């Protein structure tokens, strides 16, 4: 099971953070999303469970002044409320939301990058985003 991790560092830091991480730790993360926000630059990546530990205990984070947060909460689908209408699926940039063989809504949490487009588009408010 892959885990999602948010790396955050100050805006001033600059430099090719992801390339440095790959080079120095030898890990090969999937980049899910990159943002430049008021809080700094944020990289949402995914790693295997044991790789998260490798990164957490490596000296890389401390040296580069990078904060690591493991994403625990995620997009929540209220099955009771969902009508499987599918209004969300064409808005999902990663295909995390799709209709299955029986036309019921499938949420593949691993693929969700927390863009949030689907949440207000749900006509019956069955989708909620957990804060991270």
């Amino acid at each position, binding site marked *: 099971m892959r885990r999602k991790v948010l790396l955050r560092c100050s805006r001033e830091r600059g430099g090719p953070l992801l390339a440095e991480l790959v080079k120095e730790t030898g890990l090969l993360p999937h980049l899910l999303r990159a943002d430049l926000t008021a809080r700094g630059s944020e990289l949402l990546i995914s790693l295997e469970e044991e790789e998260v530990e490798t990164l957490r205990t490596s000296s890389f984070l401390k040296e580069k002044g990078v904060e690591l947060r493991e994403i625990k909460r995620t997009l929540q689908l209220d099955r009771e409320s969902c009508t499987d209408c599918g209004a969300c699926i064409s808005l999902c940039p990663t295909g995390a939301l799709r209709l299955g063989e029986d036309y019921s809504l499938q949420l593949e949490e691993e693929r969700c990058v927390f863009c949030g487009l689907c949440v207000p588009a749900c*006509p019956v408010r069955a989708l909620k985003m957990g804060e991270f």
Partner: protein
Amino acid sequence: MKTVAEINEKIRRGEAVVVTAEEMVEIVKEKGAAAAAREVDVVTTGTFGAMCSSGAFLNFGHADPPIKLGGGEIYLNDVPAYAGLAAVDTYIGSTSISRTRGMEYGGGHVIEDLVRGKEVELRGRGYGTDCYPRKEIETTITIHDLNQAILYCPRTAYQRYNAATNSRDETLYTYMGTLLPEYGNVTFSGAGVLGPLGRDPGYRTIGVGTRIFLGGAQGYIAWEGTQHYPGKGLGTIAVVGDLKRMDARYLRGCTIHRYGTSLYVGLGIPIPILDEEVARTAGTDETQLRTNLLDYGVPRRERPVVREVTYAELRSGRIVVGKKEVPVSPLSSFRMAREIAWTLKRWIEKGEFLLSEPVERLPADRVFRPMKQVAPVPLVREVMTRQVVTVGPECSIAEAARILAEKGFDHLPVVDEHRRLVGIITSWDIATSVGTGKTRVSEIMTRKVVTAREDEPVDSVARSLELHSISGVPVLNERGEVTGVLTSDDLSKLVGRRR
């Protein structure tokens, strides 16, 4: 061949062969329509989509002392209900929105809450008469406290409906859902093979008085639906049923993001297979069901057709628009439509639901006419300033300032060598650039420009100016060349002209 009475006799004996429309497609494909007509007695259909033209008539009974709410005001959980009927009758429509919660809660939600047996707050005002002296009422009610609660939907079950996409460079929030920029997605509504009216497009078996599945209970077709337009394959029906017997699983209040509230209505119609012709239409597969993909980026009544699509393509989840393949969202639930068709099938098999012969056919010649407007809405090209001056991105700010001052303009579109728009600068941009050391127009221009099209009605541009807090937009022709500028000044003059 067969009559409805004969089929009902078979249903009573538990011998009727009932299949869903999905099953019928396979049977017709395999055995042909003639054999299917001999074999099958009833085909069940279903649909579960947001139907804005829906609502419920409610009767509260009289208060003591009595109040006449008709002519006054009525609110249910802060959602305005119609107060133009007798003293304690009302109609709550699905699109009425809460005065306190806005689009998050509306008439559709009130109806769902009533069906769930929840308490609903009733607040009302009357003007007071000799027979109805009371002027205000505040109480809570549940559906059990009402004398009647009747779901009545003037327009449901569109035979087919167009699919939607968006050519603009901004996201649109429409009744067809969220439409991503530059043909980023496609949405459609309708249950395809399970869609009721499409199974009997000649309305041979469906008409006024037809008993149907409505909101989890038995209901009836009351009349042709509003905007019923059979000539274009856009038939609709008005339906009626007892809200007190309905199930909230099949009636869901909803919010269409930044559009409004509505009500998802579950509806299914049984089609008696009287002869080969009905069998054939009831077994039409999705590759034969076509609709138009329209560009909702053009805010006109007649939206341009991007291409024709089949329900089979839409159902596949991805369709080709121009050169790219884009994801598709259904807005109505096919899984629920299927559940409704299966539920109706079981009811009939168990003899709990008998078919009814229509007492009146649906009209086949009705047309849907546009609204009569006494004052036509002017188009951008009729109002815009045509003496548009443009500059290139390498032009100096000083030169741009000189042009604006000389011409008395506030907006200066920046174009490339092919006259394509690359940016815009305003007198405000120039004012704020003073002392920054910047010299070229390209350094201070706004690159993401809000634009208008020549053939757009000015009302939609006025909305765009307001949404973006800007005072003018460059106008582009179909080739993307700048042909004018439309400013709030141009719009102000128009108001003067209208008077």
